[in-house]
């Protein structure tokens, strides 16, 4: 029996999504492999594939999520630029090729699983806020993010108030007073303020998406 036959049989036994779906997308990976590497079950990975197909075909039907498709899903507007959505997209795009394939989508989302280790969530959030990839969150980076949030929320704050917020934050987080927040300081700061990584957990990921929409709405 050749390798392909073996794989067909194992797919049938595992009830893999790949056996049901003939049209493969670029970067598609076997749900059993992805489930073994993440907190997701095989059926949850298969359900995430359904979501992935919707997202990746919303503008260009090529089985890859482009930045505009990601923005469309988050804001229902393909042209709305958002610093934070850009950062998330860039972190999901592990291969740095400007698109998110299915493997990247599942592995990146696994950090947001309720059962993912807290340390991974803390680390992901740090990377998110380290805009210049320096291994530190610098004061000017943080200010840039605060201004982006205020702009996004249509909040107008005077420079003086923005500085007050910056001062308060650095006083609490920058323990060695060097004007930047390193990974250890960030870990310590989050342990004191757990609400900072609240958005690093998506309760939706705990329920298998093989539930029908009506069941899911009922569940929520």
């Amino acid at each position, binding site marked *: 029996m050749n390798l392909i036959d073996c794989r067909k049989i194992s797919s049938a036994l595992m009830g893999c999504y790949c056996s049901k779906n003939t049209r493969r997308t670029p970067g598609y990976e076997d749900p059993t492999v992805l489930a073994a590497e993440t*907190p997701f079950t095989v059926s949850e990975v298969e359900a995430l594939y359904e*979501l992935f197909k*919707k*997202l990746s075909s919303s503008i260009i039907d090529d089985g890859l999520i482009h930045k505009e498709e990601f923005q469309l*899903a*988050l*804001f*229902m507007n393909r042209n709305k630029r*958002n*610093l*934070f*959505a*850009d*950062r*998330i997209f860039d972190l999901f795009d592990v291969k740095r090729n400007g698109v998110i394939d299915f493997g990247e989508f599942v592995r990146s*989302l696994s950090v947001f699983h309720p059962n*993912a*280790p*807290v*340390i*991974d969530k803390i680390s992901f959030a740090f990377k*998110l*806020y380290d805009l210049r990839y320096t291994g530190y969150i610098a004061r000017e980076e*943080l200010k840039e*993010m*605060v201004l*982006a*949030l205020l702009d*996004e*929320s*249509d*909040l*107008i*704050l005077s420079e003086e*108030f923005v500085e*007050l*917020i*910056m001062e*308060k*934050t650095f006083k*609490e*987080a920058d323990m060695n007073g060097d004007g930047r927040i390193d990974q*250890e300081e960030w*870990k*310590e*700061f989050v*342990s*004191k*303020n*757990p*609400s*900072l990584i*609240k*958005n690093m957990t*998506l309760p*939706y990921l705990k329920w298998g998406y093989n539930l029908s*929409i009506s069941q*899911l*709405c009922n569940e*929520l």
Partner: protein
Amino acid sequence: MASRSSGSGSGSGGKTRVGRYELGRTLGEGTFAKVKFARNVESAENVAIKILDKEKLLKHKMISQIKREISTMKLIRHPNVIRMFEVMASKTKIYIVLEFVTGGELFDKIATQGRLKEDEARKYFQQLINAVDYCHSRGVFHRDLKPENLLLDANGVLKVSDFGLSALPQQVREDGLLHTTCGTPNYVAPEVINNKGYDGAKADLWSCGVILFVLMAGYLPFEESNLMSLYQKIFKADFTCPSWLSSSAKKLIKRILDPSPMTRITIAELIENEWFKKGYKPPTFEQADVSLDDVDAVFDESGDTQNLVVERREERATPVSMNAFELISKSQGLNLSSLFETQMGLVKRETRFTSKCPANEIISKIEEAAVPLGFDVKKNNYKLKLQGEKTGRKGHLSIATEVFEVAPSLCMVELRKAGGDTLEFHNFYKNLATGLKDIVWKSVDETKEEANDGVGFVSS
């Protein structure tokens, strides 16, 4: 501007102080104890405080045993054992102040990275044995070694928790005897399952053997969905080492997981084992003088109350002021729930708005608007709990509300569905918004949206 108390985790509900410690969020909970994060306000050091209920301990005649174990634990100072700093008591509770570590559980590493390489597994195993050997030499046995009790500090050093407090996970039956109740017996020695009395040192070593197996294999040596089948496997030590283990590692595991405690390897023999000795550095640490005065004071039965601490709550004068990261975390771009909600037609379970009114005015206005809608309002400083009086589709609708201070003249108000039906929550806040029109701050852009939306809410 009031700053958020470190680790308070209780939002604006005020801080709780016990002695010189400010209590924060709950880290874990068991039958007899609750563990809370806390901060020493004098030294700014983070600690964990295990809180025991005196009444429960008295009821189960565990006081003398707990005193004995706490006294012994206080004397234990080892780099691989979670340190006990001090013990305090109020009229109703005992507070055990412990070292707080931030590196998570060792087994989180395996959950994310899979099995460890042999050298790394050996490094952790050596630290575990160092801790166990040291405690055994002082007559302290763990009796419940399992993954949850193996923690890592910020530098990746292994720390064993719950050493010595072996009375706590056990239950007292009507016969007045202690009986171990193992949630999962996967790590428990066969002689412990037999419940016929056992040598604590040998039983602990068996658990260490199971832990070593999991570190290197990535799965449990004994696993069965049927409890009786699992017991049989444990009694016979019916397991197979995976092929990727070195032969010396396999041999050692077989010597540790020997079902007969009489022939099982001892720690003294283990430390001389060639596989174990590779790269082994015996721990170096100083033995300091330790006072047991606080333990004696806590368990003083003379009725003297001068040593008791009081758990007191400090009320907040102003709402929680948000730091920059809390503010940023409110961005819609960081709210990946939208990926699911927009695709699956789900209704949002959280919303927020901003206001230029003073926080106490916002609280009053929300109360005024919620009561006519049939909601009971419970206030706790700058937090509100709105409870629907009518039973909805999924029980009573319950909404948690909190006011945060973004800047001295700007507040952010969050409303979150805490219970009940999501669609009912959605309808509720549409109605509530009408009553809050005059306090919601609207910028130019929001005013444009208002024509469609009714009010300047920022959904999340």
